[in-house]
């Protein structure tokens, strides 16, 4: 196809037909401010008008994010008319926006602030009173908070929730000046089918959607002298946290993460990776058992709580396909207050278990009534990577300059197989390594299972595993892609034995608790950080080689899928259905088990 030639600010550009002015300008390094458009989402409603430019021969100004180029087009992006109009647009956006930047969760990280800066707004000529906080804020969900006052109606969240996640919780409602983005009938989020995935948070340009902040509860626990506070950090956190402190995207900062957690006062700094390895042992054995005994196949992974909630709402008929394994976070929690309590001689009632997750759905998971296997709340508090970043700032810790430290034993040791849990395909790759070794008694020829890596929506591979013969597996990330493999199962046409599903695009590295922003390029770089840890840093690369996991079986669990595993590491699911409104009960209070139970 022949290219279209145009000039933007006197620079000649040649682009494919159908390219928008905005994309053409980006190609030659001209920045046009945007707010509503997200090219990666294919979302350009042309609503906000901050991307106005002047096109010679056109009357008025043009929204560059939706306007396609034509041959010989002449565009100007910085004329006085353009600058005035953009500034006016931003002023109008600010006219009913609460001026709360100093104490807003997106302070210094907000796209509206940024366009206000770029367009040079220095005064507000219009001011319309905003809604009251009480009317505007929905805190019903343990994962996601909505503040309607700050919404600028870009509708990115609507697109991500409907198109990428196919959950369709949020919708533009009403119109004109009373337009809001809300669940149907303004239902509290917790009464909808919301998975808590937080993908809407990741695309929101402002502070209208954010994670439920649990920092203060953790501070309180840390300052309580009667408490012994243990912390686990999920695989993806080590390639995200640096971004909160301006480090290059995807930097592997495990050692600094540990040092920072210790400085914050956690008594033991452990790692979710420890139980990621454990998950592979339990789940691998579960898979083999199902294959040998004719259990329900394909088996689907269960590490991703947003995915689990989605399945419980939309595919409850497929619940028997879910692995009964708890997620690594919850396995860790259950062991922290049993195994660890036992070997450290600390009364589990004095242990506070905190986890650092790239995920908002993990907050919901930790509150599920099933998650009391230790007799206590297995995980007391969940902080996202963003919250940990804020906590480190609050503590005045200079993160970038921290010297690397090591995890505590025994729940801090892990293999490279555990680290790659943080990216799409990682659980599958880790499982294949171990299942192959268990079945054949030999290691996979190449431990890098590249067909399941990368950002393609559904990935498939077939591997010959000794006596089992060829085993077909699939990996899906993002719930729209999950639907593809699930519908195959429903139709009885699934060719797979084992399927990995991650709720978020890219897996946990793109989770709803990740630093802003998360784009495909960012996902790739974070994944590269994890593969670096697996490929070059870790001594062991197969979960069954983890000495601490071996020891755990020796002294405590005895055997995979055994009695203790069943009690502490496996769970069950509930049919939630899609009927609205859902009446969720609040977080269950765990009843302490009788003394000696669980041992």
């Amino acid at each position, binding site marked *: 196809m022949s290219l279209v030639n145009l000039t933007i600010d006197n620079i000649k550009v040649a682009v494919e037909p159908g390219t928008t002015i905005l994309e053409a300008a980006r190609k030659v390094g001209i920045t046009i401010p945007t707010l509503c458009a997200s090219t990666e989402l294919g979302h350009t409603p042309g609503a906000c008008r901050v991307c106005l430019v002047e096109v010679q021969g056109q009357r008025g100004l043009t929204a560059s994010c939706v306007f396609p180029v034509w041959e010989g087009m002449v565009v100007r992006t910085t004329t006085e008319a353009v600058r005035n109009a953009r500034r006016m647009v931003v002023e109008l956006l600010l006219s009913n926006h609460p001026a709360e930047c100093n104490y807003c969760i997106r302070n210094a990280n907000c796209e509206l602030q940024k366009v206000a800066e770029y367009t040079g707004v220095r005064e507000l000529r219009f001011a319309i009173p905003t809604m009251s906080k009480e009317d505007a804020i929905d805190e019903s969900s343990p994962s996601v908070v909505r503040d309607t006052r700050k919404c600028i109606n870009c509708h990115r969240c609507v697109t991500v929730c409907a198109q990428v996640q196919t959950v*369709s919780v949020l*919708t533009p*409602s*009403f119109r004109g000046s009373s337009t809001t983005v809300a*669940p*149907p*009938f*303004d239902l509290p989020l917790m009464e909808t089918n919301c998975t808590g995935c937080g993908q809407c948070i990741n695309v929101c340009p402002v502070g209208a959607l954010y994670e439920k902040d649990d920092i203060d509860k953790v501070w309180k626990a840390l300052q309580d002298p009667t408490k012994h506070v243990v912390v686990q950090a999920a695989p993806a956190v080590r390639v995200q946290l640096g971004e909160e402190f301006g480090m290059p995207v995807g930097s592997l900062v495990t050692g600094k993460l540990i040092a920072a957690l210790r400085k914050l006062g956690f008594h033991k700094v452990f790692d979710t990776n420890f139980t990621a390895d454990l998950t592979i042992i339990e789940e691998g054995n579960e898979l083999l058992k199902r294959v040998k005994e004719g259990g329900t196949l394909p088996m689907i992974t269960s590490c991703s709580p947003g995915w689990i909630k989605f399945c419980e709402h939309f595919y409850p008929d497929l619940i028997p396909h879910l692995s009964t394994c708890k997620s690594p976070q919850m396995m860790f929690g259950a062991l922290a207050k049993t195994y660890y309590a036992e070997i450290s001689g600390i009364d589990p009632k004095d242990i506070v278990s905190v986890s650092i997750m790239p995920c908002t759905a993990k907050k919901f998971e930790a509150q599920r009534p099933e998650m009391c296997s230790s007799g206590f709340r297995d995980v007391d508090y969940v902080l996202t990577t963003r919250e940990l970043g804020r906590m480190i700032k609050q503590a005045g810790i200079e993160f970038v300059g921290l010297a690397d430290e090591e995890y505590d034993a025994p729940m801090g040791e892990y293999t490279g197989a555990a680290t790659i849990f943080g990216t799409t395909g990682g659980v599958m790759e880790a499982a294949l390594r171990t299942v192959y070794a268990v079945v054949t008694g030999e290691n996979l020829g190449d431990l890098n299972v590249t067909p399941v890596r990368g950002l393609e929506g559904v990935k498939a591979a077939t591997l010959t595993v000794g006596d089992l013969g060829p085993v077909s597996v699939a990996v899906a990330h993002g719930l729209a892609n999950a639907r593809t493999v699930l519908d195959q199962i429903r139709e009885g046409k699934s060719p797979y034995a084992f399927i990995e599903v991650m709720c978020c695009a890219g897996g946990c590295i793109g989770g709803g608790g990740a630093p802003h922003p998360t784009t495909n390029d960012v996902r790739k770089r974070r994944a590269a950080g994890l593969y670096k840890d697996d490929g070059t840093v870790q001594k062991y690369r197969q979960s069954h080689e983890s000495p601490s996991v071996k020891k755990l079986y020796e002294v405590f669990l005895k055997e995979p899928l055994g009695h203790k595993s069943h009690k502490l590491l496996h769970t069950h699911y509930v049919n939630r259905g899609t009927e*609205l*409104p859902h009446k969720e009960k609040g977080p269950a209070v765990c009843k302490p088990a009788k003394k000696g139970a669980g041992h």
Partner: protein
Amino acid sequence: MKAKARNADIDISKEFTPEQLKKVDKIIEKFKDRPGALIPVLEEAQMVLEFLPMPILKIIAGGLNLPLSQVYGVVTFYSFFTMTPRGKYTVRVCLGTACYVRGGKAIYDNIKKELNVEEGETTDDRMFTLETVRCIGACGLGPVIFVNDNVHGRLKPAKIKDVLSKYN
């Protein structure tokens, strides 16, 4: 948050006759597999039922296999659709500039308090539905309200009770 026009607990089996509900099913059946079915279904269903409360929107969403959020978005976008039943009388308060400066806002607030409803809502006894309008050209009489087709002008907040009590 305000449960604006949520109508979640309306019992449709009491509110509508079995014939009405059957008609709605037929309407859904008729349009089901056509693209762009939602708006015609809503239109015809509202003709049958007069208003579209939450349980009806759920039936329509289920029948057309659409997310409830999408159905709700469309219903709230077009002011033609209503999720609340209409009262016997519609009270329209003018909030155009002339009426506003002559105390229209106070009148409006007073009526809201008197009827215990927000804009667009209907009283529990189904007597009054409250709406606001922008200038209807009766500025000389401001502040004005309409109750169905009757105009009440030069109103004082204190007189609201009297005016409304005439309607029953």
